[in-house]
């Protein structure tokens, strides 16, 4: 066992003793959820595209906070690096090249907004039904997993452990192949001569 694991185990032990017991969980959850929803609404209501992008960053960060509360620090970290740090910088990069003065005079919502609203309602109904039937759909796994082994569990599920193939190895490789094809496609489309 390496020292890193040792300290991780130590903290897990402290957690079991109540040392690391979560503090004010409902308060954090509702604050983060409210922040995510409010800034999510701001994303579609702001006329200025840069303001929308900033609101989107706040949404992504508060969702990362929610992942942390679900004992999934790895997912939260990746969310910050990939979305808040990487993709949003590219978003802003593109928005700055657009003529915002003209864009802000355009109509903000086009005529198919009822369709979007209907789709949102259907999604909402789906979520409500999942919440109502939640107990039957998802078996209760008992105590939440310790956050100290989250990264390792993801790795085991994706790549397998002790010589066995992981549960999702095949799906994971397919997804990476898909991304590779997308990258190649982007290169081919931008390059006139290869």
């Amino acid at each position: 066992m390496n020292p890193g694991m040792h300290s991780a185990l130590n903290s897990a032990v402290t957690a079991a003793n109540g040392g690391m017991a979560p503090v004010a969980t409902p308060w954090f959850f509702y604050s983060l959820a409210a922040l995510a929803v409010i800034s999510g609404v701001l994303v579609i209501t702001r006329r200025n595209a840069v303001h929308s992008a900033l609101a989107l960053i706040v949404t992504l960060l508060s969702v990362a906070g929610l992942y942390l509360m679900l004992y999934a620090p790895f997912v939260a970290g990746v969310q910050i690096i990939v979305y808040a740090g990487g993709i949003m910088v590219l978003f802003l990069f593109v928005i700055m090249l657009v003529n915002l003065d003209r864009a802000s005079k355009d109509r903000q919502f086009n005529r198919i907004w009822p369709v979007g609203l209907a789709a949102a309602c259907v999604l909402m109904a789906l979520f409500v039904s999942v919440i109502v039937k939640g107990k039957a759909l998802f078996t209760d796994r008992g105590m939440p997993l310790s956050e100290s082994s989250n990264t390792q569990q993801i790795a085991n599920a994706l790549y397998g452990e002790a010589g066995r193939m992981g549960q999702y190895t095949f799906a994971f490789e397919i997804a990476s192949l898909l991304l590779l094809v997308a990258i190649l496609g982007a290169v081919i489309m931008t390059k006139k001569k290869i």
Partner: protein
Amino acid sequence: MPNFIMSYLRSTEALTPGSAGSQFWALIYVLIIFAGVSLAVICMNWLERKALAHFQVRLGPMRVGPHGLLQPIADAVKLMLKEDIIPTEADQFVFWVAPLIGLLAAFTVYTVIPFGPTQAVSDMNIGILFMLGVSSLGVLGIVVAGWASNSHYPLIGALRSSAQMVSYEVAMGLAVISAILMTSLNTSGTGTLSMIGIVQAQQQQGVWFIFKFFPLGFIAFAIFAIAMVAETNRAPFDLAEAESELTAGFHTEYSGLRWSLFMLAEYAAMIAVSAIAVTLWLGGWMRPFPNLLHAPVWEFIFSLCPGFTFAGLAAITLIGTARMPAHSFFKIQRIGLAVFAVLLGFIALLLLVIAVAGRSADISVAARFRDGIDHVYWFVLKVAVFMYMFIWYRATWPRYRFDQLMKIGWKVMLPISLGVLVVTAIVGVIVK
């Protein structure tokens, strides 16, 4: 004393306050780190102006205080009293919030930096991931500042900055991954992302990762060292604020306190990325040869280093005092410098006393204190070398052209870092 203060001090297991769940000590650590980083930025400000001046055979600031020692304070007062201008055409709210984004990102990173095995606010399981992620948020401040200024030069600076950051982050991330890969080369085959765990892995394997699988670790380190200069927008990659082309780049329209927040964020980010490099490749808080020279006598000799460093600084200051011109105009400056020398000497004496007292094992409090000072000393020393390198680069190399910058990032550093990653993985499997 109340239990919530003492329980952390009495605990025998070595834990950071965050891992031990002690909010009080975590807060104390946060305050200490905040004060320390601010002080370091002030020192760095003075050192950069002085060192750059000496590189160019100038004297640098000499008027405010002896050898310009009080210049940063004078600058800070000037910046605070300056008029804070917001351009009429600027986007008021975004203009206001942009420096804060950069500052928050730069300072949040410090929660996971391990100044010692217990001298960190918290030991996060995803430490290095958290650091890279949050420090990459700093670019948002720059981009948004350039856009909100609603002016040509800042916008060009912001565009350059975002393109540069996105390009160099890729090479940087791959170099970091090859170091993380090395942490998993142990009997259990499990690596770690925790900053403290990474240093402990180097201790356990008995080698700093810069020397591991020579030259693989060194190449990864070199790529990180180049990419981190680009990430912090420093010369020779400071195209976002190239004064010969863009006046001041993204912060052209900023003045006074708001401008100084950008400077604070930039220097804090420089210290933070240096801390990542030190943690990943240079053994973090460990002194040289902790496994080879582990006899008590070596332990004692190395624990004298902090004291002697301050004694050396005091000696240099004393020489400076003696060399002051004998004119009566310099009388006050000479007294000031002498007081500074005495202060440094006093700190040196204190550190030496602690080192000697910590030698006998029965005084465990002194020993713990000595270990803490040693860890922080070696970490800060390594980071300080990087900070000096930042100044050295700026004085030595001319600025790159933007297409050259992009070419280096994508066509040289990215393939090399990918290659190093693959070869490190192969060698790791073979050695095992």
